[in-house]
């Protein structure tokens, strides 16, 4: 299967026949799809099928897979956002974490921080004192600060309440409208949301996962 998204620009990230196995167990095989600029893709699949692992492979964090994951050019920035793993120092606040990677808070990244998602007090609070929803937002804001070309969102909407969930999706659509490619992993059906593609990852091989209930 090769799923392509609507727009016709060359893909920012192209996956061809990607197979992943952990510890000798196959997770999924021969997955191919493209992420083109200005598209928003939804990726679904049951628990343990390997969505997180696939996203990590796409972000270059997980390196043991077969097949190719090819970015358009080496200057493509891929940001991975995960509700389980903030990719930041937990003892520092969001502001301090961003200060490490961006030049100075008064300039570029202030755009991302002075926003309607996280209050000033929370931006200055160490990450390990934030609530689960607040952490998820903080991880999202970190990704925005690096101006990504491809943004991979791993279940970041699930710990959020209605309002915040809508705001994060709206924010992502804003990025998409500027030519970014977005991929969202979620267990929610999100029937009201419009996506350019809805993919479902399927387990392959013989490893026994969950018994059907």
């Amino acid at each position, binding site marked *: 299967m090769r799923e392509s998204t609507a727009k016709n620009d060359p893909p920012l990230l192209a996956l061809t026949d990607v197979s992943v*196995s952990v510890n*000798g167990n196959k997770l999924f095989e021969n997955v191919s799809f493209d992420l083109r600029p200005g598209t928003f893709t939804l990726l679904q699949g049951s628990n343990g099928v390997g969505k997180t692992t696939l996203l990590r492979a796409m972000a270059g964090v997980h*390196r*043991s*897979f*077969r*097949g190719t994951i090819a970015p358009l050019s080496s200057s493509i920035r891929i940001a991975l956002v995960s509700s389980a793993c903030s990719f930041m120092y937990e003892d520092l606040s969001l502001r301090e974490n961003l200060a490490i990677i961006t030049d100075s808070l008064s300039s570029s990244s202030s755009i991302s921080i002075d926003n309607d998602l996280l209050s000033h007090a929370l931006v200055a609070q160490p990450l390990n004192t934030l609530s689960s929803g607040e952490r998820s937002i903080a991880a999202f804001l970190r990704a925005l600060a690096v101006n990504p070309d491809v943004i991979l969102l791993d279940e970041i909407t699930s710990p959020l309440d209605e309002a915040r969930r809508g705001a994060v999706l709206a924010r992502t659509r804003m990025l998409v409208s500027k030519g970014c490619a977005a991929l969202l992993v979620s267990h929610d059906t999100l029937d009201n949301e419009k996506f350019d593609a809805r993919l479902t990852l399927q387990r392959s091989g013989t490893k026994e996962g969950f018994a059907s209930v």
Partner: protein
Amino acid sequence: MSQPSIPNTNPFKSELFTVATVLVAAWITYAMHLVFTVVPNEVTMGAVQRIFYFHVGSAFATYAAAFCMLIGSLGFLALKQNHLDSLQLAAAEVGLLFCSLVLITGMIWGQFAWNLAFSFREPRLVSTLVLWLLFVALVALRKFADREQAPAFCAVLGILGAIMVPVVVFSVKLLSPIAQLHPVVVEHGGLREATFRTTFWVANGAVVSMGLLFIWIRHRIALLEIRSNEQNI
């Protein structure tokens, strides 16, 4: 991601390998003959002195292994090829073996000659100990690291380890010879008698070639392991 596969032939069937094994075995036998039946007892130290032939040979074999390790490490970092990583792996393990032999024979000998198994005032002893620790670290790292990351990690450590070899070799020469127990015989024109000299070189050659043969064997085994892993995936 996956590396080019290893050619699907049984490496132990190659004629070159058989010939090499036979040659090394013959050489070792001849060296044993010289060491234990031809050379007379050394005057001051007696029979224990015969350990000398294996002691120095093991040291040279260690250096040879370290050199192969350096080649394997550099090659792997530059070319990312599995057989270079296997060379590094093989050299590190064989290096550990022979470095242990140097230490053990040295300590046995020291106990007889100096009545002291080990001393920290001896640069050569200490630097050999350090080299040994490095080989241990390398072998342990290989065991503990994940299969995917072990090659690069070991290559990095292997290069650092190879840096230590010149330190071991030259530690004696750089320091003032006063208060050093460990001898430097060959360079100072020792081994005046011809039988001693031939035996020394034959035994050295035998041990070093045995070390190289070990590296070869281990290298082939490592390649077979990689291939069987590839087939299992």
